[in-house]
């Protein structure tokens, strides 16, 4: 019932909202997929990654380059980008999952920094700091409203499939490896393989968000591969509440609103972002959604 009401609201939104808001909503959707894919690893697998921008960025660059350099249409470029990025996730998973905890985090970070550095320096291919321009959207979705519906549909499908994944027997096993990896292997679960499959799956959804990202902006810059981008995704997950289905979506909305609104008034977006990181970790370690709920309960029990 609530879900149906939300769906109606979202479908009706472009009819009442101005173009700026419709575009902002599209960006939130795309970022929500990205955050949700990080949440698969962080929230359900207990694997903190600082390299998830790799999948967003590589899918975006692949699709852009296939279109620009080889002149391929979206029908070929999009599946190729998804497939290529997912294969990269297969490989990166083999390397990063040699470790867990801090080691995993450093390996994912190091791998993504390599891609970022390469995108900056391989000017012949990526045009470096200038980024790639002149990209197109599929289906000529050039006005804000039609792209909004496209992004909405893609996001709904993605989130639904990720929710299925989490709610499946495999998802239950993944959560088990988060809480008691040793016990899980004593129960006959292949802990490493469960993590690797989840890593690849999360990489795939990162790639999906990357495609939507490059369609929306019609432009791609190395900054999309940067640590900042990975960290913003991680921030969205933690801000919203990791290990919950709705958390990353709320978190994505918070980060995007901050970025678009506050940065219009304050020039120092990076300082603000840094402060938000510190404040959330120190004061709301379990996330805004559970945190607000907790504060509300305390408030309600007093009155």
């Amino acid at each position, binding site marked *: 019932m609530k879900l149906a009401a939300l769906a109606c609201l979202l479908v009706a939104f472009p009819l009442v909202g101005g173009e700026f808001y419709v575009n902002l909503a599209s960006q939130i959707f795309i970022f929500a997929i990205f955050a949700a894919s990080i949440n698969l690893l962080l929230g359900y697998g207990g694997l903190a990654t600082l390299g998830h921008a790799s999948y967003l960025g590589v899918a975006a660059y692949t699709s852009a380059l296939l279109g620009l350099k080889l002149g391929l249409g979206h029908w070929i470029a999009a599946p190729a980008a998804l497939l290529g990025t997912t294969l990269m996730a297969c490989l990166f998973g083999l390397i990063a999952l040699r470790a867990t905890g801090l080691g995993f985090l450093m390996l994912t970070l190091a791998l993504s920094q390599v891609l970022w550095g390469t995108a900056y320096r391989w000017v012949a291919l990526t045009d470096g700091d200038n980024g790639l321009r002149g990209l197109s959207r599929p289906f000529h979705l050039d006005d804000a409203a039609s792209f909004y519906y496209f992004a909405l549909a893609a996001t709904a499908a993605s989130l639904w499939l990720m929710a*299925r*994944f989490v*709610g*499946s*027997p*495999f*998802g*239950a*096993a993944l959560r*088990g490896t988060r*809480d*008691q990896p*040793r*016990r*899980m*292997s*004593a*129960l*006959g*679960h*292949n*802990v490493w393989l469960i993590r690797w*499959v989840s890593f690849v*799956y999360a990489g795939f959804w990162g790639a999906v968000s990357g495609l939507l990202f490059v369609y929306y902006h019609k432009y791609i810059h190395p900054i999309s591969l940067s640590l900042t981008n990975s960290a913003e995704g991680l921030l969205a997950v933690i801000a919203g509440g990791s290990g919950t289905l709705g958390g990353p979506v709320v978190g994505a909305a918070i980060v995007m609103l901050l970025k678009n609104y506050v940065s219009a008034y304050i020039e120092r977006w990076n300082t603000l972002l840094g402060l938000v990181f510190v404040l959330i970790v120190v004061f709301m370690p379990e996330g805004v959604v559970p945190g607000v709920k907790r504060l509300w309960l305390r408030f309600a029990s007093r009155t």
Partner: protein
Amino acid sequence: MAALRLQNLRKSFGGLPAISDVSLEVAPGERRLIIGPNGAGKTTLFNLVTGDLPRDAGNVILFEEDVTRLAPHHRVHRGLARTYQIITLFPKDTLEHNIALSLLGLSKLRWNAFRSFDADLYVEARAVLARVGLEHLAKRGIAEVAYGDKRRVEIAMALAQKPRVLLLDEPLAGLSREERATVKQLIAAIPREVTVVMIEHDMDTALDMAERITVLHYGRVIVEGTRAEVVADPKTREVYLGH
């Protein structure tokens, strides 16, 4: 044929031998007790059998199959199950979910990422909980139940795997007298076709449950035999009484 055979197992931690040259043979259906004072290497021995720790030398043979090079979860699929001395459960989940994860470990379903978590698993899990007398707590969280109940969940998780060889690591540790009696009954009710190897550091608590006893001391087997033989052996006294 032996259910479990260990050949010259060795393990050291940073030069300190924890297990030196242990060989053991447990017959199918046997109830074997491994005793020894704290620090004798009992849990380390279990960890070598399950593969939780890599061994330095020697072999682990399960029903005439050498499993020494198999990963822990592969050994589990060949019928090996264990419990932990330090309770290792999923504290955020319910009792039935804990058991369901155990059932899932040996089910093909565990790789299914697209259908929703099967209610049948919970039905089966409750049946397992009923065997250890905890069905009424199936929907409680692990964190909410008493220590003695957690011990029983530990055992239920291993039983749910329908093991052929079951390793119990101090299943009576920290229990009250009444709780001990319950858990002992539970262990006594395990079907005969399951081979049970149990660790205990306190000699008196578990003697009556064993058919054969192995005494481990400083990582070596010093005495092995029937209950009467082991109790009568002067070396057992030496270990336990210190002279």
